[in-house]
């Protein structure tokens, strides 16, 4: 027996020492097996977690989702829903007797609200709004739910008669119907007719969740002045008073994502927990740049805490946890959680002076390869369920017991991947001309042998306010990077200025230099990588999607050492971006502090537009775009393509006939990534 164990240990050791000898490398076909987990919610009694499990139905080209219930020790997993379409957003009633979720009654129809009894019985569809349900929240007493739904057009009869012309203001260039305002509704958990709570030409911010006051007397929600998507940047928190049926502006100015404290929440500067509301506040007035956590008094609205001093990171997500808050942010090349509250762990703060009484501290995990994603919720006991990201394997559901720093892995949906060799990723720092260092993720070729040189591919993130982390997550981190590494490229994902992993000063560096500032950072990163001696300098490629496409198209206009380039959904013309995109003028305003309608403004936009430098391009370039990209208008791909082709540059423009900024169907995703990786194989192998 002992002999056998020793033998096994030796085998394991051998396997981990030379993975490339024994293990297969990932292919696109393999990646169709990836199971995605999301939205974990701990049951009110603290014993179970419900989450959404998503698998790929390749033949039908659909993502199939279902709700799965699992015990907090990882045992007893069972599927709660069967064959429903687009199941998402599970939420327990406060007594745990029922589980609500959204799903489409039939394919192609918008989602409706369902409630499932947890003592046996099928789910009941509660809503029938034509426009479906966007988000919802249980009333604390569990007898009703508030939800958000778009209004039906008031002129439906005229529309049916084709009197359907749309008056355009800041709508995107694909607009075919007048956007309708979203409003609050209330429906009893036992069913029956739903009641409209609010109405008007203003709109609840689409996709924002209503938030109940703990006593059920108010619903907090985000309001924007009209239903035009681009105007979500004007959102502010309102309270709907259930008894008086009146709406009140809380006076916070532009903010987002309100979360109300409860009796368990700690008091702060004399305000008790039950009178606190947390929101994110833009530090520079726009939601597109750094957002801080702001905690305010519900009684008079004054700010009692702002995280800017203690936690200089762009806040991605947060939730109340007993007396404190857990805040998700990027940090370096990691995705991390901070605990904000009356802490003793002051040594763990990132920077700056601290607010009196409160502080922020990094939540350490015992497993140094596990990262915190913002997709997390707290149980009533103080436990946390979260989607745990991991450097070397896909995300799984984790459970963090109250007070513990040892997350327990609950799911193992992607165990199959242990048969495969996974490329290793690590942080790589380099010096920028801002005087500070930047850090990105360097992924090694799967068959890496020290001392040999390998070609390098840059994969530049979009946003631009986001971060490439070293985790196997996201379209690029999980799929593209692993495929490229399996083809034995180094892959580097730079977090250039404008990324939100280093704090506000680094992020703000992009304002006014939207293409050129990050461009210089990325060129400096390549120089630093070359200096390592690990790179085959004759084979360096560059690529990225969206803001990463912007960078790619800028970089090939400013250097000719690239062997090949792949620019996806690239912003190549800031002017077109400002007047055609669904995010429209406010987005570019945030990054330029000017609009392109004056000579100076137009010149500033041209100076930061890759199309201005297209005449310099010599790199063989693949242009990718969805045909109906509302975010980065496809017109920019057409313009850049003709600018290259008409000058005889080797260029190919592959269009993916989809609506959206990146294909969401499995086949669409894969053909996009295959084209991307294939271009490097064609020019760099």
């Amino acid at each position, binding site marked *: 027996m002992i002999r056998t164990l020793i033998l096994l240990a030796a085998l394991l050791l051998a396997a981990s020492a030379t993975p490339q000898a024994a293990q297969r490398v990932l292919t696109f076909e393999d990646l169709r097996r990836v199971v995605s987990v999301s939205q974990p919610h701990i049951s009110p009694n603290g014993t179970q977690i419900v989450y959404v499990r998503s698998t790929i139905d390749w033949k039908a*080209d659909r993502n199939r989702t279902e709700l799965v219930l699992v015990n907090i020790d990882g045992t007893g997993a069972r599927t709660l829903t069967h064959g429903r379409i687009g199941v998402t957003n599970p939420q327990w009633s406060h007594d745990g007797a029922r589980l609500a979720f959204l799903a489409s009654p039939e394919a192609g129809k918008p989602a409706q609200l369902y409630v499932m009894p947890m003592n046996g019985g099928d789910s009941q569809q509660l809503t029938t709004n034509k426009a479906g349900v966007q988000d919802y929240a249980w009333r604390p007493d569990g007898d009703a739910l508030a939800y958000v739904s778009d209004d039906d057009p008031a002129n439906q009869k005229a529309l049916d*008669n*084709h*009197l*359907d*012309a*749309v*008056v*355009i*203001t800041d709508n995107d*260039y*694909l*607009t*075919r*119907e007048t956007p309708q305002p979203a409003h609050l509704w209330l429906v009893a958990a036992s069913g029956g007719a739903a009641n409209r709570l609010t109405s008007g030409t203003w709109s609840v911010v689409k996709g924002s969740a209503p938030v109940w006051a703990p006593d059920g007397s108010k619903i907090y929600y985000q309001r924007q002045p009209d239903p035009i998507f681009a105007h979500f940047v004007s959102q502010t928190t309102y309270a709907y008073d259930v008894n008086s049926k009146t709406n009140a502006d809380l006076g916070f100015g532009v903010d987002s994502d309100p979360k109300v404290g409860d009796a368990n929440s700690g008091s702060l500067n004399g305000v008790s927990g039950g009178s606190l509301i947390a929101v994110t506040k833009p530090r520079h007035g726009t939601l597109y740049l750094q957002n801080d956590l702001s905690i305010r008094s519900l009684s008079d609205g004054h700010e009692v805490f702002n995280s800017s001093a203690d936690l200089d990171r762009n806040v991605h997500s947060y939730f109340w946890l007993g007396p404190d808050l857990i805040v998700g942010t990027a940090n370096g090349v990691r995705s991390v959680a901070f605990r904000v509250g009356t802490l003793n762990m002051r040594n763990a703060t990132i920077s700056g002076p601290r607010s009196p009484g409160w502080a922020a501290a990094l939540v350490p995990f015992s497993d140094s390869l596990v990262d915190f994603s913002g997709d997390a919720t707290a149980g009533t006991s103080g436990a946390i369920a979260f989607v745990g990201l991991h450097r070397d394997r896909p995300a799984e559901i984790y459970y963090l017991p109250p007070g513990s720093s040892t997350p327990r892995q609950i799911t193992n949906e992607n165990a199959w991947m242990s048969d495969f060799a996974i490329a290793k990723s690590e942080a790589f720092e380099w010096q920028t001309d801002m005087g500070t260092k930047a850090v990105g993720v360097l992924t090694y070729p799967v068959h890496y042998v020290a001392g040999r040189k390998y070609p390098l591919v840059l994969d530049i993130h979009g946003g631009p306010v986001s971060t490439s982390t070293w985790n196997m997550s996201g379209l690029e981190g999980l799929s593209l990077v692993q495929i490229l590494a399996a083809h034995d490229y180094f892959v580097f994902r730079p977090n250039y200025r404008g990324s939100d992993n280093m704090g506000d000063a680094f992020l703000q560096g992009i304002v006014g230099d939207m293409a050129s500032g990050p461009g210089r950072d990325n060129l400096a990163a390549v120089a630093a990588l070359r200096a390592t001696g690990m790179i085959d300098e004759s084979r360096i490629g560059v690529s990225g999607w969206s803001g990463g496409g912007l960078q790619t198209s800028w970089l090939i206009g400013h250097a000719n050492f690239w062997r090949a380039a792949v620019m996806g959904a690239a912003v190549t013309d800031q*002017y*077109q971006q*400002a*007047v*055609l995109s669904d995010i429209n*003028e406010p987005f570019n305003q945030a990054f330029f502090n000017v*609009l392109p*309608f*004056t000579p100076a403004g137009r010149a500033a936009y041209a100076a930061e537009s890759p199309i201005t430098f*297209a*005449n310099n391009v010599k790199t063989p370039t693949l242009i990718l775009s969805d*045909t109906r990209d509302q975010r980065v*208008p*496809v*017109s920019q*791909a*057409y*313009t850049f*393509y*003709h*600018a*290259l*082709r*008409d*000058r005889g540059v080797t260029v*190919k*423009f*592959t*269009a*993916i*006939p989809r609506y959206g900024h990146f294909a969401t*169907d499995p*086949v*669409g995703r894969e*053909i*996009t990534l295959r*084209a991307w990786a294939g271009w490097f194989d064609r020019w760099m192998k």
Partner: protein
Amino acid sequence: MLLAITPPPALTLKLADLRKTVSVASPTITPDGKNVAIVVRRNDYDKDRTQADVVLVNARTHAARTLLHNVTGLGQIDWSPDGSQLAYTAQGIVDPDDPDSDKTSQIFILPMNGGEPFQVTHEKMGVDGFDWRPDGRAFAYSAHIEAPNAAAIKAHNDAFDVTDEAWTDQAAPTPQYLYQIRASGGKSQRIGSGTWRVGGGFTYARDGRNIFVTRITDDRHPNRYLSRQLVRVNLANGAVTPLPQLSQTQSDPVRGPSGQIAFAFANPRGTMQTEIALADAGGMHPRSVTVRLDRNVAGASFLPGGALLLTANDATQRKLFRATAAGAVTTVPLGNVSAGGSSVSKNGTIAFTGTTPAHPAELYLLSPSSHVPVRLSNYNGWIARYQLGVTRPVVWRTFDGLTADGVLTSPPASAKRAGRAPLVLYIHGGPTSASTTAYSGFVQVMAAHGWYVFQPNYRGSDNLGLRYARTTVPHITSVPGRDIEAGLARVLATAPIDANRIGVSGWSEGGLMTSWLIGNDRRWRAAVSGAAVNDWVQYDSMSDAKDFAPQFIGKSPWSSPSEYNLYEAESPLSYASNVRTPTLIMSDAGDFRVPTPLAYEFYHDVRATGTPVQFVVYPVVGHFPRDPVRIEDIYRRWEAWFVKYLGS
């Protein structure tokens, strides 16, 4: 008593009245000249569709009877060579057990000795056009094939490589091939082989053993519309013989009484002007017959003896011309009738649709012995009850000494107010087109408000010959802009117009001119800019008409900085910050010709000036809506914008 029988026109024309307009088109005379088939379309506003009927009109008695009622997807109609059958394209008969079957366009035959129409073809992607074989026993037809990767597309593996696609395209274009099928139906056979593609009209040779075909020049994208040539294909062995090239663009052959072939070609000295060449029965030895005509020819058919009947704009009227093989040209006497489509019988009787200044299109007949056309239909008799404005030509000198013209419609007497009247400029598109004195419903609706309506022609218009048209190159916008300003000066000097109440408007190229004029002149009180080419660089990248900008401006804007600067200088967007004119901007959401993003650009730029501007988008694909409801809505907003700013 007499007054009671013929009451004077008294009603004021309103936009909704135009729903009563009946369209008469596609006159097709029987070989013996005794009957004419026409396509009659009526608006069904409530159902938002047009109803198409095929009507047979007796040339002698003028009696009409409907041959085909309410035909869905009616396209081409054509008599069999002996006149015993009428072939046409329409939506195929749908199998009730297979709702997807034959929803595309198919060839049908209607026997004229009784019996219902018989469906000849079952092409999956539909029939685009057809030609009767001279013996009447078979058809040649063109049809697009299914995408070679149809199975992959069905599995959503549907990415495609863009080359000269329009921004709205969702798939690569599929080739159009030529087929032959017996008139009795059965299996069709492809004509020719290989990958060459049809790019326009085709006609059998007299012997029925060869066919003349417009083909897309090798490897050119269909959106490269100037790259088309003519070939003769041997039906027995598929051998392809190119015809001599008079120009880079030759197309649309027609066969004459003794087998000679006429075809269209783009004048090499100015490809915007289409001319006609005559070749022998083998398609060889072509010679232009339009050197002396020097007009852009819109249609050609053979007269007995081998002369050609040609349709072209000339000054402010669309006329018919007779051109001999030697190139001698005479005008066919039509009085004040502007000609539309035409058809000639074996004995030389001409059936054509014609429009007078006060009456929408009707069917006319001109027999060989007559000098006066006879009107055979009166579908639009309702218009006689309305008082209309009078439309007359206006002639002026351009800044560089050429003669230019346009038409001015004065308000009807009942709409005249004391003092000077507002003026609306209503600028045609194209630019290869022309405004004529022919009836225009919307012009009359505007005139009924008491406004003068000026429809200028300008450099690039096709009514004054090639020298005039081609001098718009490379200044596609600025030279026409100056022409229109000069025409306006002439109008102001001749009519009692309030210079403070002038509106300017147009669609497509007319929208381009409108956007330009409001950016270069602030005299306008209001403007309506529809589907305007506001940005030539963007247009060049995204439009389906890929030869247009190179044809009218020059090489690619990316070929040199000077080309780029020229494209920018001719773009209204470059002057948008000057705009102070309240402007209504309109576009279809999926305009592949003048890309919709160009309207967004202009809107945002004008809005930033603080000038009142409204931007309206129609959620349809195309360059202008085709359904009655949306068309009327466009004109209603157009009219209302001017009522608001000019007064009624």
